[in-house]
């Protein structure tokens, strides 16, 4: 038993060469992009299980449980309709203001909650990150999936509202599927971006609500998008036209509503912008997050 230490057959060899000879790797090195993507694919079961667990946990203390998945968006829509529809009279002769408002609200809420939770994807899970090794992108991706499941609940409410308010079922409804999928890719990229930002800059959590509020007002959620063209100078309207959230919201409105005010007249162009944003944000966010992989959980 005395031979357990110090009797080193490789003795005399410097540690670095010893490590190289036995194929040891430097601890905590960032994997290559290809390896990382493959790892992430192997962890897909973890990502979905984690997303489902988070969804279940978010309602675990409420008595009505998962019913809140539908009740929350419903009450949200009711409050905003009360204020912007009835008190402030923002409908301005629009055919179906309730459906217009709810479509915008739910689509925007999908991105908003993803971003809010994304800023804490790393900083709020330090225990898990310091304990276990898994590709960290699992966490923001799981958040996107959880929010996507929440969106499905909201969509049930939205479609019910759309039907009750007398909109016809048309083939255009099918457009909702690719529109929401593009938005999901966009959200995933954005969530990964803010996750990395939020991991270092802890103040981001405080600033985020204001950024999101501004973004919401710039996306024509609560009032007619015609107001932008009427009140803003031309260049500002052009910027708003390329606002990804406005684009995704307009696609949902075009899909579900017969007659709705739009800022972007050309539907093909709107689709192009939607696809462009989804690619740029999705890929860019993933690359940005991967580049910080080895830093997460260190403090």
């Amino acid at each position: 038993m005395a031979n357990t230490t110090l009797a080193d057959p490789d003795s005399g060899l410097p540690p670095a060469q010893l490590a190289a000879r036995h194929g040891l790797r430097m601890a905590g090195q960032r994997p290559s992009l290809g390896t990382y993507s493959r790892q992430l694919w192997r962890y897909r079961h973890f990502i979905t299980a984690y997303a489902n667990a988070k969804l279940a946990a978010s309602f675990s203390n409420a008595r009505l449980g998962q019913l809140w998945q539908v009740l929350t968006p419903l009450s949200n829509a009711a409050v905003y309709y009360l204020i912007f529809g009835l008190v402030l009279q923002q409908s301005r002769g629009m055919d179906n203001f309730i459906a217009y408002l709810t479509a915008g609200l739910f689509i925007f809420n999908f991105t908003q909650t993803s971003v809010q939770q994304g800023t804490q994807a790393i900083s709020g899970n330090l225990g898990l990150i310091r304990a276990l090794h898994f590709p960290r992108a699992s966490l923001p991706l799981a958040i996107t999936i959880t929010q996507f499941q929440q969106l499905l609940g909201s969509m049930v409410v939205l479609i019910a509202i759309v039907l009750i308010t007398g909109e016809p079922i048309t083939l255009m409804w099918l457009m909702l599927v690719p529109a929401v999928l593009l938005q999901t890719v966009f959200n995933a990229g954005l969530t990964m971006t803010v996750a990395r930002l939020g991991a270092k800059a802890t103040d981001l959590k405080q600033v985020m609500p204001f950024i999101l509020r501004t973004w919401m007002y710039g996306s024509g959620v609560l009032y007619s998008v015609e107001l932008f063209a009427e009140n803003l100078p031309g260049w500002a309207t052009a910027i708003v036209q390329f606002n990804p959230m406005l684009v995704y919201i307009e696609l949902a409105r075009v899909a579900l509503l017969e007659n709705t005010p739009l800022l972007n007249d050309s539907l093909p162009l709107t689709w192009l912008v939607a696809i462009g944003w989804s690619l740029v944000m999705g890929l860019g966010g993933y690359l940005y997050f991967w580049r910080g992989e080895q830093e997460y959980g260190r403090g």
Partner: protein
Amino acid sequence: MVDHLAMSNDVTVTLPRIQDRIPTVVVDDAHVVYRVHKGAAGSHSPVAALRRLVTRTSTPNVREVHAVRGVTFTAYRGEAIGLIGTNGSGKSTLLRAIAGLLPVERGAVYTEGQPSLLGVNAALLNDLSGERNVTLGCLAMGMSPAEVQRQLPEIIEFSGINQRGDFASLPMRTYSSGMSARLRFSIAAAKQHDVLLIDEALATGDKRFRKRSEARVRQLRENAGTVFLVSHQLSSVRDTCERTIWLESGVIKMDGPTDEVLKAYEAFTSGK
């Protein structure tokens, strides 16, 4: 021959022959410096914070701690190494550097595969049931869903959380600290790790669980793993490790057979 092997497995650990010694962790003159964000301290007024933002000076309440100062050693397959030292001697920091969770400031840490760190503070999701935590933990370690299903009853059984009623289906926030530590250890120990780093986790359970977990650690070692154990309970170091490294103020004070190191350490701490 077979009989002999089986017997020796029961009694003690069979060490690999000296010629077969394969390094799994090589630590080469590692220095670890970490930065602590203290909350409110010093001039913490909004004006001072703003001035720091404008002048781009770093906040005075970030303090640098030089926790590990030039540690060098090599660990081999099948070894269990105890890490001892008084509080704040850099044991846990060293483990986190080996796990790749803290960067080394100078020097280098080389490891075989991905070391897994098992600490008392490694929280899972407290709002979820123990069972669900086991599933998540196992998936997070890279197991396949089928493997998780197969291991689940075994892990719950090993952790012993169901000894007083059906706790596995209750949220983890209802567990006592001992119970959740036991569950965490059971999850981490369910997988064969190349290098397993244990930080005080064995100390939390009751005596029966400690026996079980020590046996499990021995089993992990026999399957060609390397185990590091940080503990203030010298008895569990004596029972599980045959080699011990004694850290003091971030430098290795002694590295050798457990008996010798513990003797010197006990003399040191009682002499204080």
